């Protein structure tokens, strides 16, 4: 795991299952998803296709379908599902004691590093 700032962003129960909530950060809006298996993922809230708000998409399995043109983006990798090609930055996220923590790049890291977070 890259050195990152773990920040508490709220309670898991405040994110609807098969839904998401948005965290506003200096890097832009980050969508924190919770799927039906209670897995939690975080992606930049911007579809690699036309910038659609992924947070408003339908979550199914480990995929979210963008509400604008139905591109499917993989929650665990940020990659668009083939045959579409594209990738959205993702962020480390974990749940401890019912609280969701988002790993943001350490303050020294720049936006350019967003793609390498893991």
């Amino acid at each position: 795991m890259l050195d990152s700032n773990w920040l508490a962003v709220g309670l898991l129960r405040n994110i609807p299952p098969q839904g998401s909530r948005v965290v506003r950060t200096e890097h832009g809006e980050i969508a924190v998803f919770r799927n039906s298996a209670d897995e939690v993922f975080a992606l930049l809230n911007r579809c690699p296709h036309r910038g659609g708000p992924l947070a408003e998409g339908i979550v199914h399995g480990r995929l979210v379908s963008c509400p604008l043109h139905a591109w499917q983006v993989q929650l665990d990798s940020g990659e668009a599902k083939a045959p579409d090609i594209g990738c959205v930055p993702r962020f480390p996220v974990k749940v401890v004691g019912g609280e969701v923590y988002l790993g943001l790049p350490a303050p020294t890291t720049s936006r350019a590093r967003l793609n390498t977070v893991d």
Partner: protein
Amino acid sequence: MKQQLVLVGNGMAGMKVIEELLALAPERYDITVFGAEPHGNYNRILLSPVLAGEKQPDEILINPIDWYAERGIQLHCGKAVTVVDRDARIVRTDCGIVQPYDQLILATGSLPFVLPIPGRDLAGVVCYRDLHDVEQMLSASRQFRNAVVIGGGLLGLEAAYGLQKQGMAVTVVHLLPTLMDRQLDATAATLLQQTLEARGIKFKMAVQTSALLGTERVTAVQFADGSSIPADLVVMAAGVRPNIALAQRSGLGCERGVLVSDTLQSSDARIYAVGECVQHRGQCYGLVAPLYEQARVCAAQLAGNSEAFYQGSMTSTKLKVTGVELFSAGEFQGGDGCDSIVYQDAGAAVYKKVVLRGDKLVGAVLYGDTVDGGWYFQLMKAQTSVAALRDSLLFGPVSEAEGGGQQAVLDWPDDKPVCDCNGVCKGKIVETIRGKNLQTLDAVRAHTKASASCGACTPMVEQLLAAAVGDNYSAPALPAMCSCTTLSHDAVRSAIREQKLLSLSQIFQTLAWRHADGCDKCRPALNFYLLAAWPGEAQDDSQARFVNERMHANIQKDGSYSVVPRMWGGVTNSHELRSIADVVDKFQIPTVKITGGQRVDLLGVKKSDLPGVWADLAKAGFVSGHAYGKALRTVKTCVGSEWCRFGTQDSTAMGIQLEKLTWGAWTPHKFKMAVSGCPRNCAEATIKDFGVIAIESGWELHVGGNGGIKLRGTDVLCRVETMAEVEEYCLAFMQLYRDEGRYLERTAPYLERVGLAYVQQRVVHDAAGRQLLAQRFRDSQQHFQKDPWAELASPASRERFIPIVDLS
């Protein structure tokens, strides 16, 4: 340790299994392929264009040798497997290779039938089966003049056409009096023979070939009556036999072909068989579509999906002779218990026959004009009732005739856009289909985006797909809802009703959905079906709704929303306008627009402002306009008899009344209405889902119009006298559509699918049924007619519209 998978037969069926399997479970097997021919695999159905000089051999390769290596597949080309030792679980080749297997696939194809007559071994006598045969025929065409093709079936005629194009003088010899007797009736066969004769091919019908003459090379063909004709090349195209020699030697159950179950397993469960060598439920197939269906099931089985079953295929035929349009499918001969409907225009050489049993289409022969072949085939496979279409059946689907020239798309230049939503031109679609070897409409949608948005270009894309894939392309009979299930929309709906399923999770469990929580295609549809079937009882799942219905506003390209308050019948007043203006100022809404449905659209509202906007609008007395939903949208009106000097009835009051009755109702797709006060029809009621036009004696009711994707004028449902009747008929029609329309199917395609006569029967002629439908609509409105804005504007609900935390 990976399992060893061995494929015997490097042809279209066997390699389709491998390709599908690699997509489903790429890591599961070490794969070894044996092929008797010395190439990678190629598209055998394109041999005829190669023979005719319309394609080069390398253009019909599906996978070159490198393709196998890149995927770690061991390929043994030009090696024939001679032994399957089932006890030791190994195969042996003629050259001594020994290969163990855990699972074995036999795809040994078929062998051409060689007539058992003297002279069959002479030089210049060939079958028509593989690339080698085509090379021999091409080489003969360069040196010799006279060709005789024995067999007037599909393959024989394609061979004759190819050889003639190569400059040979061709005679077709056929045992029976008519050509293609397995696919054509006598009339169509005669037309075909005339067309080919006009192109210079000679025919000798109803003759039996007794010998091939010559000493080293063939010189003549002799017939049973003693006559003969000269021949330098003889092509035997008298049919094929499943190649079951290896299977028989290995002790597998065989009749005409290798016997397989619905899982494509032979009598030995470790040995699968697919393709032309197979006999399934008594049938052997020689066309590509069924072979591919078998391959898909076999691959799914090998990937571990024990629920995949093959249940047989219905097939159709076309002839790959350029410029000859011919289609046949099913029980084309007609006969006892069947009705045939025939259209014949000898001058134009057009012949069409459709065969009906009861109200189902069971067969079709088309000659000269085959545009509707796919449509008939679809009706046959889906076993759709065509009772209502009977009068117009021979003229094809009406809407497509109006849409104009499906055929034409094949003649378009490559740079002409087919899909206007996504800007995809014809060349791109054709190139992608070929380059990626796409076989299905879904695959074309995924790779090109063509037809993936509004769907208006779907028939054209299907046409391109059919042309590229070969003439055996056929759309699936009743397509599955999505990749989560094999069930169609209709099948799922029946299950929801019959088993009283009340939630998505119940559907997923009961109907064995492949993905635990469905996908973005099925969830919204299922949620609607639940609500429509069990209003008030089914569980509405907001996470199954598309963003617009979840946010009760329309998402726009920049992620902002647009808000449309309901304006009953398009009528407003100063108080409402002032309140809207205040909201615009307060929330700095950038654009205010009058919609085509006589309302005010507030565009560019931030998500976090939505609850505030709604709260203020609600205070002024507005409810949601549902401008975002698969629901009643708007009721457009003119000013009618209250103001208009021509108005015969009060259309504005009628419109308001209809809107008050029906707002909030969920429907399969958006639902629009209009009421015009006189036959001048200023409210444009004839392009709405439900249209009302005032006439002197009362009201004329219209259904099934669409001003959108594909312009369709309404059909007249009936005329009624009173406003109460208008209401009852309107509600009954909406309820019928809600019960039977498939999700995302507007009333226009719904009406074309079930037929106007059916809708009139349910809504007009059956008075008791109409009242029941209308009552059911009213009952469900108790549950649906609630203003979502009022609920969501409450402080408790506002949380979901704002970030969970703001760190910026």
